[in-house]
């Protein structure tokens, strides 16, 4: 479902010339797998997730998502594909402070132009699942970090994406909260049958995945 074929990503920087963020990366994942990616800061983990989400395109090589080579799709088509089939979770949560929990979770549906009872039921279900159903109408500003990330996970799963990409989802949380968020994330993708790729610095959290991959200076080692 997600397959990289000899993917390289080169950034041309003004100061230090061109530089490989990813070099010759090849892998394929199958449905429902959970994969942890570890590596030092600057090794190319986020770049890999961006390519997978179609946010960016490779310099060389091919990124296949659900059988479609992303680098040949238009920006609009990639955006649609991401909207309909990919969920994203970020280190800094990126919740909109002026919206309620409910509206933050609803955002992907709003953007996709979906509404109605089914959407509302799904939001309620997810908020219940992450343990925040009684705070649906509260603004997100006063939530704790762990709660914010739970809301972000609910948002990412709202439209039942087949692929969920999480970039250091616990990077901004303490150990206990990080653990809780990890457990919740893994439980949810298992329930929904979603494929999960997540970046983490923690060996402990990496061990929770089906597989653990490592990146060194842009070179992927799928173990």
């Amino acid at each position, binding site marked *: 479902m997600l397959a990289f074929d000899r993917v390289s990503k080169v950034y041309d920087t003004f100061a230090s010339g061109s530089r490989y963020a990813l070099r010759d990366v090849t892998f394929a994942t199958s449905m429902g797998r959970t994969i942890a990616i570890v590596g030092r800061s600057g090794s190319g983990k986020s770049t890999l997730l961006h390519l997978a*989400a179609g*946010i960016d395109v490779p310099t060389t090589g091919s990124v296949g998502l659900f059988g479609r080579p992303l680098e040949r799709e238009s*920006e*609009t088509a990639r*955006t649609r594909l991401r909207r309909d089939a990919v969920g994203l979770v970020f280190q800094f949560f990126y919740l909109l402070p*002026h919206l309620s929990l409910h509206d933050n979770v609803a955002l992907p549906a709003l953007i996709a132009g979906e509404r109605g009872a089914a959407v509302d039921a799904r939001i309620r279900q997810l908020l219940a699942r992450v343990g925040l159903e009684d705070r649906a109408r509260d603004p997100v500003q006063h939530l704790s970090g762990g709660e914010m990330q739970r809301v972000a996970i609910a948002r990412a799963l709202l439209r039942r994406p087949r692929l969920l990409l999480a970039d250091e989802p616990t990077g901004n949380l303490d150990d206990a909260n990080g653990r809780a968020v990890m457990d919740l994330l893994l439980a949810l993708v298992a329930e929904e049958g979603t494929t999960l790729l997540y970046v983490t610095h923690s060996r402990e959290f990496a061990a929770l995945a089906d597989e653990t991959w490592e990146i060194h200076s842009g070179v992927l080692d799928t173990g």
Partner: protein
Amino acid sequence: MIRYLVRVVAANLRRAPSLYLLTIVGVALGVASVLTVQILNQSALAAFTGSVQAVSGEADLSVLGRTPTLPDSLYPAVLADPDVAGAWALSRTSVTLADRPDYFLDAVGVDFFAPIRIPFVTSRTGGPAVGATLANPAAVLATPGWTAVSPELATELDLAVGDTFTVTSGVRRARLKVGALVDFRRLTPLAGTRLIVLDLAQAQALLGEPGRIHQIDVRAVAGTELDALAGRLRETLGPGVDVLSPEQRTQRAEGLLAAFRLNLTALSLISVFVGLFLVYSATQASLVRRRAEFGLLRSLGATPRQVFAVIAVEVALLGALGVALGLPLGYWAARVNVEVVSATLTNLYLLDAIERLYVPRALFALAAAIGIGGAVAGALLPALDMSRRDTKTLLAAFTLHERLGSAALPLAGSGAALLAATGLWYVVGGHDWRGAGFVLAIALLAALPLGTPLLVQRLAALVRITDFGWRYSLRSLGVRLQTTAFAIAALGIAVSMLVGITLMIGSFRRTLEVWVNSSLRADVYITTPSWRGRSTEATLDSALAAALAALPGVRAVDRLRGFPGYTGERRIALAGVEMGIPYDDSHLPLLAGERTSALAAVHERGAVLISEPLARKTGLGLGDSLPLSVPTGERRFVVAGVYYDYSSEGGTVILSLPTLNAAFGAGPVNSIALYLAPGADAEATVDAIRARYPDTPLLLRSNRTLRAEVFTIFEQTFAITRMLQGMALLIAVTGITLTLLVLAHERLSELALYRALGAGTRQVFGIFVAEGIGMGALGLVLGGAGGMLLAAILILVINRAYFGWTIQVSVPLAALAWQAASLLAAAVAASLYPAFRASRTTAAELARDDV
């Protein structure tokens, strides 16, 4: 430090030229509107001062009549005073060129034997030499029509010494001969070019009346106490004259112009106000983009004060650029508008036309100070905000405008308190003061922005988000209040002005229509071209008047004799009328008094009707007595009625023609109006008269033409108002663009998130355009409410106090709807560029904050 600044400015100019340009344009527009108005104000005064100085520059005092003319027998009486070193009589007549009836000249008759210094210049064909007096006055007197003209006029009319030209005064035509070129600007740089000088006796004979003069200029013996001399002369010469110093004469003009100048100044201040908002948003825009840079400066150890200094100097630099652009723009706008303002002065205020712009250097300095000071003041708040924020917030991506959010309620509260306090003040006693209306208007325009954050916040909170469309946009507006509320408030103020002034002008126009319909009843109006210059000498001779009245098809005739007069210190217009047909019910609508008895009193008992502005300004009403200056002193007339009049704000008095003639001495009429028999065609009659009197300078207007002319004058009067209104609106709409640009930068992460969640570029574009429309709509709502209140203040308070007209409120729906539609269209246009910029945001922008 300086080098850092220069580099920063250069770098930003390259990176975000649109923002910088908009800031500069904002300052430029604000500066330009102030400068335009001030130049016009100063020029209006200078036109008057110039003519005083050019004619009476050498005089310490001028003896002026309180009646149209003075007998020249007063002259020896003036000379007899031991403190008078010299005196000379003058006649002053407005004449028009025979072949250009709308080209007025100010003809001054002087006694060339009097000790006046006239700066004659050597002409191209060798006229008299420069000197204190003419080399050979006797020769001048021997030349019929000898006239000195300014070199500029000679050039404009293509005249050389020895050439002749024809002017008209009333129905008379006079052939004048260019005898010399005289440069009055050597006496005063303000002097107009349309001054012509001829011998007094010739002027009287050709243009005026033998034995009658308009003015005696006096030079006092050195060391004389001028006030005492003036008092003594007044005593000697009797109550029919004023003895004034040139300064006092200028002050009189200032007094006459006060309402006009105040009106313009108030409008230009509003432009500055709105301009400040623009500068504020522009500054904020350029600062927000560089939040990270300031965060970095701070983390490298720069103190808040240093950061503040960097910002202040940078903004002052932008302000200076704005000023550099605004000064020529303001000057240009003044040039473009000088003609309509000049027309207003002559039509409405009976003053000299502005011939040339008068621009004291100080005005440029003032405008520059307003521009740069305004820019810095506008930047103060955002700069302080920026320099005070801690390093961490500066570097963080998602910043909230929580502070203004929580301040919204207290702000609105203080706005309401301000309105309530001002209202109370007005009711309790403020209404007695003439300027009270302006206090009300200012309080309203100040309360409006104070209430804006709350309105925006509450309205936005009401919106339920059901899609990623306009509702979503509206909700977003309520979040970044500090940015959006400012733009909306600025727009609200501009729209208030627009709506308020549109309502006022619309109501006024409608009122005028009703009034014109009922008071312009005759079919053909006949006067002479120079009458429009309000010259007393612009008369129709009685034989001609009688002949016109006897034309076939003429059913009845109104006659009018009019000239300026005085009631106390107030200059007013006097009209002696003889009505040809009995007035029916709607004719001459009265505000106070019963028609039949009022007209009977005017015709049979020498009573008068006074115009509404005069009644309001003097406080006189039915049955009171009105003092008028007449040649023999002062006479009182019973007020039999107050009539609606919109032709002059100075006030007019209607007497019956016999009453006027008895009081001021008999004289020819200035204008007659013909009522035609049923079925007769007015335009045909006009043509017939023209054909019958081809050589008589007549100004013939059918009822239709005259009405059209009334409305042309009306539009002229408000042309400058509309221009300033437009400028304020332009500034406000630019504010929308700026605000959205600020939002596009401020919300970079938010927009990137939308893109990451799958929003297309078109969706982001749409969200931004919807925010622009939302701001436009909120500005409309605020401005609509504010505008209605403002219109009430303008019509009921300010107009009453300064002009004294009753204006029936009428709502020009079509005009308002058109304005609302154009404003929304402008809001859409203003948001296109920022929306485009916002839609270029990519999901990858999120990553930057991630690493």
